[in-house]
């Protein structure tokens, strides 16, 4: 870390890219800095964000960036259709693949669907219907996706075992069902 100014920048970049609050210790590790330096960097960032749409939130040892509450109505207007609108056929397709093949990588989903699925997957994440459940062993440690508690609620299921038998007579599908039942 070359200087306090760039530490502040690094912290902002990390917090911007994270979808969950981060511990001060995680920020120290990522920036090779001690606690005092990170705390100073966070103070600096808080000042830099004054008058901006985004603010630094702190809860005990956890920090995250969030939009200012008075701007929430714009955010809701812009993004509500995504979270509350009907699911697209592509979203149902993807959801079905995740439900039956979980844990499943993005590239496996794309292999089955034959098209890029970034957008659909992140929309399903946004709706809290699928979530990252771990990392694969293969090179690049790809994210593994699975369905969420909310998926069960929305589908009116008590557990994944209540899903109807998986599609396809081939061994692959049967395999998936077994894995699912064992979980």
């Amino acid at each position, binding site marked *: 870390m070359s200087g306090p100014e760039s530490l502040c920048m690094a912290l902002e970049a990390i917090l911007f890219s994270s979808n969950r609050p981060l511990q001060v210790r995680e920020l120290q590790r990522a920036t090779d800095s001690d606690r005092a330096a990170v705390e100073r960097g966070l103070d600096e960032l808080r000042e830099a964000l004054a008058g901006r749409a985004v603010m630094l939130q702190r*809860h005990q040892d956890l920090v995250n960036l969030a939009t200012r509450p008075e701007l929430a109505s714009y955010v809701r207007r812009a*993004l509500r259709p995504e979270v509350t609108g009907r699911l697209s056929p592509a979203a149902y397709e993807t959801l079905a693949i995740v439900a039956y093949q979980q844990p499943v990588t993005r590239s496996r989903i794309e292999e089955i669907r034959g098209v890029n699925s970034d957008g659909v997957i992140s929309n399903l994440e946004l709706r809290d219907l699928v979530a990252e459940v771990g990392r694969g062993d293969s090179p690049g440690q790809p994210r593994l996706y699975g369905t969420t508690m909310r998926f069960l609620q929305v589908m009116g299921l008590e557990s994944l075992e209540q899903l109807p038998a998986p599609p396809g007579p081939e061994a692959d599908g049967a395999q998936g069902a077994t894995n699912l039942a064992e979980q």
Partner: protein
Amino acid sequence: MTDATATPPPTVAPLDPRPRIDVRTPVFEGPMELLLALCEREELDLFEVSLSSVTDAYLAELAGMEHRDPMQMAEFLWLASRLLLLKSIRLLPGEEPEPEEAELLGWEEDVRRRLQEYRQYKEVAEALMARRDEDQECYPAPAREIAVEGQEEALQMDALVIAFQSLLQRLPPRPLVYVGRSWTMEEKLHVLEDRLNRGRFDLAEVILDSEDRLEAVVTFVAFLELLRRNRVIVHQPTRYGEIWVEERAA
């Protein structure tokens, strides 16, 4: 293309009539690429070079190539035949070129122009590749929870009770032989306060943690107590969605 995503879906593969020979291991994907590499290897200026001077090198490379997709091989061979023709014309100088030969000389001009264009894109490609290796990716915003705190309509108490009742139906009634422990409201208050210290929680999730309906009722009453004491705020971002309980800022 060495990546896994390049593999076509398994259902499609058998329909492909072409033999699946891996054409990626040889260095040269097409004749233009080979020709360009040869010109560069022989240090020939693309603006000056006569293509007939790379013919021998081209034929030697072709002879050394492993078996590959016949379609692709045909492209290499076609260029080889043109190069040979060109070379034979150049070896017999002095005569006025016949129309067919003139056409071939025009073709050479065309190939040189295309080689130049191709080289420029290849250089851009290398620059893009270098840039990619520099670890300069820009990371976009992740899927984050949309901050709507304080914006939704006040939660109605009856809506809360209805939500609780529907949760109750998903819990077993008290079993005939009771082996679980019984909870006091004071104990449940501590449990909820503990949860709050770790951050906000979903009311339904906490209630569904109950062993039986009695425990669920105690949990719910404890939650109402926290609400009454003004210790928590409650919000429900979407109708019928999660009910989030969160510590009220001091």
